[in-house]
């Protein structure tokens, strides 16, 4: 609903939700600008979701399309599940940013450009043949030509800063403009700047000055005829904070460790987009975290296996190429029946692929990427904040069932952020490790719990439980090396059965909607936001459409088959060639699964999903 109010000489337009996109050179500070805007809006009471979109190169040549870094955020007075398809407001700090981001602006969007950056050289570098601000190519938009660089420079005269520092403050000018446009206070960002530049007061002053100058500039110019008003959302009561997927993942593991009274051992080799988990965990040694930046991906997983064997929480994370290298070692943990958690922050592949772009194409490697019969528990997180819950759950399942767990997240979840109603530690489920206890008899390392089939665990340092395990097939109960044919078959089956029985310990699948009808939309992992938004919008239009989203990939929730049988058509949507659809077909051969896929390194847009679903409902 749009409502126009008058506010002095300017008008105010009220909106349910608005999408902003900041774009500039990698060094222009667009990620910071975007996250400050998001943070201020969260404190104001909006719901929101963010999506940073940055290049693989750290600093590609200035002014080129390759070096453009973007940050998109959707804020709303309604619940927000995605960063939005197309921007209502685009800030482009140079011609290259305009060139590469124009496609993300909706028709009629307000585009704010730094007119000072539109010189002949930059225009050519961006690949424009003419100055786009002077031909008719932007007629469909409301273009605001703001002299951001020159006004920042003028405003900061007299502050003891070098030219480079002054120019780096121009992102705050742009942010100031946005704060005026959305009627936001400057105080939150001011507080942030004071704290960030505590030791460099001139920088704090310069940045704040730029912020204010931008704010007043926006107020004054006539090109911005109206302010947007996005009132606070009605969100669930409680205490909130902002969190990104990778941080939530790290914290989920730390929470599990605290609950178990164990240390985390995180073996890791740096890889985009998983490295932030390493950065985050390495801050918290005093909270019981050991991080080892290993010599390679194999050492990363092997050291984690060693740590699990010695009684702590062995953890490793990577992205596709690293997961491929870890395969043999994960097989060892399956064979030795040791707890291990492997996070795969998926990115575009194969091979090096698209390191900074998102994809969901590692479900097959998670399920099958090891030699022989080697089933893993596979989980997938679906929002930045629920990475916490699934990291916690991954640890719980790995230890309670004594087997490796793969946790799938992706670049979109890892870097995306949202407000999170965080739990208290006392609210989290207990984690009970099946430790061996002295019973007067010799310890049998492969004696199993009758219900879970998890073996009873003894770790070095426990007197009287000395034993040997390894990657060779072992005799049941004793764990002695065994080449007996029937024993091997039994052991293969019991390891598989152990993973299957995890279904008894995970929540049932819930469907959003009627529980029956014409069309069921299935998704898994990081596509939750766009699928949920599309389906609920169509639902409001009275369409017979439901959404089921999978976080438990292997084993599947017990009620899966029963739920799926209640629909005329099922469409499985995923960011790959249809891997989950194939998996479901193999599990439920009598059901028909249609597949809708996208492989562009980008999330689904709500628009494209709705179009597809409307088409299927015809």
């Amino acid at each position: 609903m749009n409502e126009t109010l008058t506010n002095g000489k300017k008008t105010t337009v009220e909106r349910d939700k608005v999408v902003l996109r900041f774009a500039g050179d990698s060094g222009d500070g667009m990620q910071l600008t975007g996250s400050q805007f998001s943070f201020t809006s969260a404190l104001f009471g909006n719901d929101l979701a963010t999506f940073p979109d940055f290049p693989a190169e750290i600093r590609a040549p200035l002014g080129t399309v390759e070096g453009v870094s973007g940050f998109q955020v959707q804020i709303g007075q309604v619940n927000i599940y995605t960063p939005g398809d197309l921007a209502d407001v685009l800030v482009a700090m140079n011609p290259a940013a305009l060139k590469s981001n124009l496609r993300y602006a909706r028709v009629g969007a307000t585009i704010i450009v730094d007119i000072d950056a539109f010189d002949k050289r930059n225009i050519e570098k961006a690949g424009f043949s003419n100055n786009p601000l002077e031909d008719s190519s932007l007629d469909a938009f409301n273009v605001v030509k703001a002299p951001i660089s020159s006004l920042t420079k003028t405003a900061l005269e007299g502050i003891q800063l070098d030219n480079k520092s002054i120019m780096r403050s121009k992102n705050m000018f742009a942010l100031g403009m946005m704060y005026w446009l959305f009627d936001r206070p400057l105080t939150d960002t001011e507080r942030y700047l004071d704290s960030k530049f505590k030791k460099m007061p001139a920088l704090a002053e310069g940045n704040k000055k730029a912020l204010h100058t931008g704010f007043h500039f926006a107020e004054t110019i006539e090109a911005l005829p109206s302010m947007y008003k996005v009132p606070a959302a009605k969100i669930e009561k409680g205490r909130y904070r902002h969190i990104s997927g990778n941080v939530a993942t790290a914290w989920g593991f730390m929470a599990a460790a605290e609950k178990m009274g164990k240390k985390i051992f995180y073996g890791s080799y740096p890889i985009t987009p998983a490295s932030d988990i390493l950065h985050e965990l390495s801050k918290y040694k005093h909270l019981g975290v050991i991080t080892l930046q290993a010599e390679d991906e194999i050492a990363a997983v092997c050291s984690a296996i060693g740590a699990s064997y010695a009684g702590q929480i062995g953890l490793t994370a990577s992205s596709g190429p690293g997961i491929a290298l870890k395969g043999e070692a994960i097989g060892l943990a399956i064979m030795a029946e040791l707890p291990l958690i492997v996070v795969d922050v998926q990115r575009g592949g194969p091979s090096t692929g698209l390191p900074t772009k998102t994809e969901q194409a590692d479900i097959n490697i998670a399920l099958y990427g090891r030699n022989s019969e080697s089933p893993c528990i596979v989980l997938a997180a679906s929002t930045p904040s629920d990475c916490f819950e699934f990291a916690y759950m991954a640890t719980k399942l790995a230890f309670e069932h004594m087997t490796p767990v793969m946790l799938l997240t992706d670049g979109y979840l890892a870097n995306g952020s949202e407000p999170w109603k965080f739990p208290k530690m006392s609210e989290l489920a207990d984690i009970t490790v099946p430790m061996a206890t002295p019973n007067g008899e010799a310890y049998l390392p492969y004696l199993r719990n009758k219900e879970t089939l998890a073996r009873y665990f003894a770790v070095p340092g426990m007197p009287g439980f000395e034993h040997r395990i390894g990657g060779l097939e072992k005799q049941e109960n004793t764990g002695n090396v065994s080449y007996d044919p029937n024993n091997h078959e039994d052991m293969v089956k019991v390891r598989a059965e152990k993973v299957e029985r995890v279904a008894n310990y995970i929540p049932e699948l819930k469907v959003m909607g009627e529980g029956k009808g014409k069309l069921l939309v299935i998704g898994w992992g990081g596509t939750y936001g766009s699928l949920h938004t599309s389906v609920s919008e169509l639902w409001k239009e009275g369409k017979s459409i439901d959404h089921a989203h999978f976080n438990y990939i292997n084993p599947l929730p017990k009620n899966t088959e029963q739920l799926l049988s209640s629909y005329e058509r099922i469409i499985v949507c995923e960011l790959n060639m249809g891997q989950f659809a194939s998996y479901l077909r193999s599990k439920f051969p009598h059901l028909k699964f249609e597949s809708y896929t996208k492989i562009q390194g980008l999330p689904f847009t709500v628009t494209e999903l709705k179009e597809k679903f409307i088409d299927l409902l015809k």
Partner: protein
Amino acid sequence: MAEVAIKEEKPKLTKKDFASDQLIRWCPGCGDYSILSAMTSALPQLDIPKEDIVFISGIGCAARFPYYMNTYGFHTIHGRGPAIATGVKLANPKLSVWEIQGDGDALAIGGNHFIHALRRNIDINILLFNNEIYGLTKGQYSPTSPTGLVTKSTPFGAIERPFSAGELVIGAQGNYYARTIDTSPKLMTDIFIKAAKHVGTSMIEILQNCVIFNDNTHGKITDRENRDDFQLHIEHGQPMLFGKEKQKGLRLNGLKLETVTIGENGVTEKDILVHDAHEPDATLHMMLIRLKPPEFPMVLGIIREVSAPAYSQRLEEELKHSSQKSKYTCMDDLLNSGETWEVK
């Protein structure tokens, strides 16, 4: 109710306590038997509880070692032993961790983990069983096989140059390197005990005979007639003397070592180099590592033993430092840290 703690005097462990009940499946005559025996002799002398001892191995004949020890043991995957042992040690620093490797496991498929364990100075003991051949895969050349060696995969002789384990240790900034041989049980036992006491990565190369695929590969230094002239047993603080009557020794001549005989050409015992295993500068250690017959004896014993903080000790220091600096003591603190807000 008052409780009285009864201090139980634990019976002293013996060699037998460390032997497992598993049938040993190495070939008859394999050098591994004597290494196993030296190990079960050494461990009771260390005064470490059995439950605190862990044997880790990768793949290969040598890697079966943990199954034959009645301690904790983990037979893992090819070449990755040092990485797994690193995780074990860092997860529980009080454990005595022994890592068993063959020459293929340590220096071919696992070369990366081998050098990085040394570089980090992880407090583990690495035993490298060097028989210069692949045994378990039935006789291919290894990264320590001499050039020209005819094997199943080099029917015309190996054209590659071999690695020297000791040189890699020095290159990886290792602080402890000892070399011994499967025919010297006393030397092995002695070195195992000292290696266990050394803080940081202790790397012990054991020249070991593969009776099936590379028999007598170390024969030139073990043959009865050569052994005194081709083995130099060094000890820290002692002159480097060898030969039947200990009449031969090593002397530094310019930038090179030379063999001299006491009493010949005016050479006296004062001219003979005295071994300093504790010298941080590895130049002379490297020269000793490189010596080999027939020009020189093969140097056996602890060649390098330099003290430096182990990785886990540095980790401990870092932990103290970060605890002092931190504002949070638990997860609830962390969850509530920074900017949070209440939705009412």
